[in-house]
């Protein structure tokens, strides 16, 4: 009686990994390299005072990592031969459709591996005429299909049967268009990353740069949990990973924990014990469209902040969280991702001054996490 909807709550997954940046087998690089699309990074640095510096540096890298939003791109533009030769085959190209909900609309993405992925509804699929697979999250009668087109092979060229068929299917007939977020890292330093925007402008499309949105919040007199990188389950001397995870979330959401205690009527959430007092805690949030280059850079910055040996501004630990797009067709690598009631796919690094780190990866109900 008590639990008639036992299976009702979405089946989300949380993967916790503990490792060290010094470990040659550490997976942090791999994770970040294959997490192609990141929407937001939130950085939490207790005891830190130099966040202004960080903010300045962020605005500097922003100028190098320009991303563009292109409105109403006909999807056949992405299989344009000129485009493939200039951008897909050289450098690293990241494209994601924007403002389309992956559970109800058509979505598109291009990865640096040169794959064009179309997540399309049954109605579109039946008219499109390209071969695809039913989405792994669909039931016996699928309503969503995944079409995967490899743009890189040399045989994918005008005049060849396969190419002509793809072009014919995508062009003219269905009028599939997307608003696309594009970022391109050139293979050659002499080439400017903005050439991708010039290409689309020359096709008569509206291209606008996507600005980053940086927000810094200072919280004064915060209680912070005492953490030890080797203690994963809570003990008397240190908080465990679960407690730390909730605390980090509370900080990122700007929740004031100073007044709450276990018998409070409104909220019983409080800082886990044991805890220390911290005069100032910096919560910095950057939103935009980030590629692995930026996320790796941000992780590096947070590590520097934490691992710097200066006694004066000692930061025992710090955290950076990378939120993926809820409507991204993949979470990590080519692992399919969907949206059920939530589309979480986020990676959170909690770095310690001894170069250890904790990595939390949270995925929603529709994700193939093992």
């Amino acid at each position, binding site marked *: 009686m008590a639990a008639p*909807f036992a*299976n*009702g709550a*979405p089946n989300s997954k949380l993967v916790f990994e503990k490792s060290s940046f010094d470990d040659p087998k550490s997976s942090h690089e791999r994770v970040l390299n294959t997490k192609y699309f990141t929407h937001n990074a939130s950085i939490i640095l207790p005891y830190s005072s130099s966040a202004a510096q960080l903010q300045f540096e962020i605005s500097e890298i922003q100028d190098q990592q320009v991303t563009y939003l292109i409105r*109403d791109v006909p999807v056949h533009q992405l299989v344009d031969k000129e485009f493939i030769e200039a951008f897909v085959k050289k450098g690293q190209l990241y494209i994601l459709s924007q*403002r*389309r*909900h992956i*559970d*109800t*609309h058509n979505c598109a993405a291009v990865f640096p591996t040169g794959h064009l992925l179309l997540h399309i*509804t*049954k*109605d579109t*699929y*039946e*008219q*499109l*005429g*390209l071969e695809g697979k039913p989405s792994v999250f*669909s*039931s016996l*009668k699928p*309503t*969503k299909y995944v079409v995967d087109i490899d743009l890189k092979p040399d045989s994918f060229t005008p005049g060849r049967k396969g190419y002509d*068929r793809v072009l*014919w*299917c995508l062009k*003219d*007939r*269905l*009028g599939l*268009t*997307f*608003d696309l977020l594009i970022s391109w890292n050139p293979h050659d330093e002499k080439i400017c990353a903005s050439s991708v925007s010039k290409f689309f402008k020359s096709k008569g499309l509206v291209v606008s740069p996507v600005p980053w949105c940086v927000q810094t919040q200072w919280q004064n007199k915060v209680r912070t949990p005492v953490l030890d990188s080797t203690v994963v389950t809570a003990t008397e001397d240190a908080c465990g990973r679960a407690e730390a995870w909730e605390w980090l979330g509370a900080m990122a959401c700007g929740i004031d924990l100073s007044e709450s205690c276990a018998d409070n009527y409104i909220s019983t959430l409080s800082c886990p014990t044991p805890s220390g007092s911290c005069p100032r805690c910096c919560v910095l949030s950057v939103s935009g469209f980030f590629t692995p280059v930026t996320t790796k850079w941000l992780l590096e910055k947070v590590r520097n902040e934490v691992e710097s040996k200066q006694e004066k501004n000692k930061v025992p630990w710090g955290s950076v969280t990378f939120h993926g797009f809820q409507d991204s067709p993949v979470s990590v690598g080519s692992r399919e991702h969907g949206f*059920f*009631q939530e589309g979480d796919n986020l990676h959170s690094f909690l770095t310690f001054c001894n170069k250890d780190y904790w990595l939390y990866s949270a995925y929603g109900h529709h994700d193939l996490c093992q």
Partner: protein
Amino acid sequence: MAAFADLHVASTDQQVLQDVFQTAIKLGFDWLAVNTFLTDLKGKGKKGQQQNQICQPEPVELTDQTRQLLKVEGRKVRQISRLTALLDDTTNTHKLVSPEVQAFDLLAVQPTNEAAFKLACCTLEVDIIVLNMTEKLSFYIKRPLVNLAIERGMHFEILYSPAVRDSTFRQNTISNALQLTSVCKGKNVIVSSGCEKAIELRGPYDLSNLGLLFGLSSPQSKNAVSKNCRAVLKHAEARKMMKSVVGVVKSSQLSPGDQWILDSKRPLSALPQTTQEIEQPPAKKGKT
């Protein structure tokens, strides 16, 4: 997945409808059906033509604000007209095949007694069977009848807005919905609002959770506002074609978007008439 749909907006006032549409679009619905309720199938006949005139509802004019919203998000909204007829007795159902009734996109009946329910499940050519769930049902929902209706591709509708309005309605709605879903095992159920005001609308994800309280499983309850609604629309399309799998359209009447069919090199399309399949195997018509 298919787009989210609310196949029952009960209001008929233009002003209110604009409001409802704006809220619904904001919440993420792409398909919206405005309902016309017919309390009596009799009417028209002996006593004169004017009585019980059924007319198509005016399409809802979207406000500029709504249009702006759609433009920014690059979405398209489909308006659907729907007629729900109260089915008191088993006579007069011939009216359902009359042209003015058939002009509606969707047809639904609301049987009030067992005989009418049986008729609706077994013979009537309609898309949706809706029961008044705000009161105790006067009859048992029988499994063979429901199975037959499911086999014929009809869907059962649960309206949630009465449950928002009143606590007695809420109790009855939940208990009737549980009765229905246990009989049909959660198959072919759609959840619609039946709302009269925008404030009674709930978001699609809210409904995918609410379905659990109605006895659906979580995939089923998300389907109840998306996939099953698509099936209802397909059923309506097929119903209009009568019992056929292939519809024939004159090549001169082909919509501009479908002109490519004529250009394809397939010998079939060289004929003056071209085939359009509904609901059947993917992509055949696209093959060159």
